[in-house]
């Protein structure tokens, strides 16, 4: 949709999300949790999606894998995988795509594994669901996958149950499960959040290596900017259901264009300088019921102008990234900068 997107026509995007809207009908009206979100992912690319809790990042991921929990539903827009629309497929059709073409990794490895089946049985079941393999061949493949994700003693561990694995090892099993049918895209929702820092580094390294080797694209949903900075090629920053900024990870981390991204980056304690106080963004993200008119970030923004209060900005070209902020509006007059302290 924007000319700045690097994806050229000879390299069509693997995943295209256009004007996606996810809504939740409630008794007190319909809540728009994901509002007009568009992005695409090239084959083999790692797109990071960051944001604070409630920003809509996980819902976007769930919408793509077709696992929105009712009453949540896709209310508009479209999702295309390899050119084919997948957002309006019947459940059974989507089931075939999920696992085979799109793999999923969730936050808590204990709840994504069935405690009553050995990991080998779960792997074999998943492999046989998606690939025409005999039981013996599927088991061989399961064993290879376990070796590939770095489980020591895979031959004996394959018959163990999830509770016999540690957190890091369980997450490796979940990654093996996601890779079973050789998907083109993996949606990883907070894959390292439940893990210790030292294990986190192992899992990130593993995910990066596997995706490079298999040419799998990853949509990495996390709130941890550090994980994104190390792993992703591009990053989308979400705020109140919309993308605030999207661009190459280095530019977004180092030269943030949106005031929200700037604040977010500043509020991460960094090594090197011990400042007395961290930069803080006052206030909190609005609830879905009380999203302000204009730019959703305006009550907390230090650079807001009159226009920000009334008119909602769409993504605009800002250097190498795109940011949804009137500061980067080249067409009209830039937002008049109004310095005022915003009270929580």
């Amino acid at each position, binding site marked *: 949709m924007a000319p700045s997107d690097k994806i050229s026509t000879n390299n069509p995007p693997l995943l295209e999300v256009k004007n996606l809207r996810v809504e939740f009908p409630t008794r007190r009206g319909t809540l728009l949790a994901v509002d007009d979100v568009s992005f695409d992912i090239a084959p083999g690319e790692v797109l990071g999606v960051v944001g604070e809790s409630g920003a809509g990042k996980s819902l976007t991921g769930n919408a793509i894998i077709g696992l929105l929990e009712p009453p949540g539903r896709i209310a508009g827009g479209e999702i295309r995988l390899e050119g084919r629309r997948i957002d309006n497929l019947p459940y059974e059709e989507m089931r075939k795509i999920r696992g085979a073409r799109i793999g999923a990794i969730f936050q808590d490895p204990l709840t994504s594994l069935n405690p009553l089946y050995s990991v080998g049985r779960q792997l074999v079941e998943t492999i046989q669901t998606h690939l025409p393999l005999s039981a013996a061949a599927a088991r061989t493949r399961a064993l290879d996958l376990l070796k590939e994700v770095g489980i020591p003693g895979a031959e004996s561990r394959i018959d163990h149950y999830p509770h016999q694995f540690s957190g890091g090892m369980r997450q490796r099993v979940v990654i093996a499960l996601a890779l079973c049918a050789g998907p083109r895209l993996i949606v990883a929702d907070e894959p390292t959040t439940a893990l210790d*820092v030292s294990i*986190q580094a192992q899992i990130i390294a593993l995910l990066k290596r596997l995706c490079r080797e298999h040419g799998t694209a990853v949509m990495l949903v996390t*709130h941890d900017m550090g994980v994104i*900075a190390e792993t992703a090629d591009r990053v989308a920053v979400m705020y109140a259901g919309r993308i605030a900024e999207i661009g190459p990870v280095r530019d977004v981390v180092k030269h943030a264009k949106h005031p929200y991204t700037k604040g977010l*980056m500043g509020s991460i304690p960094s090594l090197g300088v011990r400042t007395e106080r961290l930069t803080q963004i006052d206030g*909190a993200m609005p609830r879905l019921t009380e999203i302000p008119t204009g730019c959703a970030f305006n009550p907390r923004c230090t650079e807001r102008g009159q226009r920000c209060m009334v008119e909602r900005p769409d993504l605009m070209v800002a250097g190498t990234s795109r940011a949804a902020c009137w500061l980067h509006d080249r067409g009209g007059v830039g937002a008049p900068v109004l310095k005022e302290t915003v009270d929580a």
Partner: protein
Amino acid sequence: MPDGTGAQFVRLAGLKRYFDVSAPWLVRTIERRPRQIVQAVDGIDIEIAKGETFSLVGESGCGKSTVARLVVGLYPPTAGTIEFDGNDMAARHSRSDMAALRRRMQMIFQDPYASLNPRWRVFDIIAEPIRAFGLSKDKADLQKRVEDLLRQVKLMPADGRKFPHEFSGGQRQRVSIARALASQPEFLVCDEPTSALDVSVQAQILNLMVDLQRRFGLTYLFISHNLAVVYHISTRVGVMYLGRLVEVAPTETLFTRPKHPYTRMLLDTIPDLDMTGRQRSPVAGEVPSPINPPSGCTFHPRCPFANDRCKAERPMPISIEGGTVACHAIEEGRLPVEERTYVANS
């Protein structure tokens, strides 16, 4: 370890806490299983000076939260002593003396969703310590105190009428802090106070804690697994591994001249936000079970510098550069101290 800074405010000496996680007696007898003891905290010595922020870092299961709970008396220690401002907490105190000591230390918990009573209004939550210790003269005084506390944590006095569920995570943590401050303590034990919060809210809470420390001269024992947060807030840092302190050092020293191999490993795992291209070295292995900790130095199975002595003999802390470190390789001079520099994140 006393470094001439005067009397230590909080002293933990040889502190141990074991948990019995054995199966029931009958099952043990029939199946001939031995008792199982988790050595959650296995002999640690810490001295905290007045007005400083001492942080404990380590991975989950290393015993840092158990230390926090031991210090405030939520668990009795298996062995060792806890001294608070010269008073041995295990000694016999009269009820009123004990209450007076307890009033001076408070705790902030990790999960602001679980640590506030959902059926109480915020006013009553914050007023409880004041009532319990009998600190207010009358109703009007109580009202005024609670309102002041709410203002100190940047909430509105009117918020006292609300219930916890009406607040966001960050605001609830402010309520927890107000409750902790209600008894006018001198020492706060903060167990992962920002781990459940988003980064922008985490910054707000950390700034608030720094402000409050300056205003009231508070001493903090800060428990965290986030090294960047610890770097930001602490005066001194202790690194825990499997129930033991492997290294204690002033913050700057710990981060720029780490000694213990485990400290170095932890520092390697900090995500690189500066995009210097530094690769996180993924360390092999995981934290072993504290039920059967490895012999000798408990870190030896994961340590690239371990030798036979490390497998057999438990290293004792030695003083070095204003801190202590428990490592044979450092003691023998096998492992040179490493210099690290960090680029400021502009």
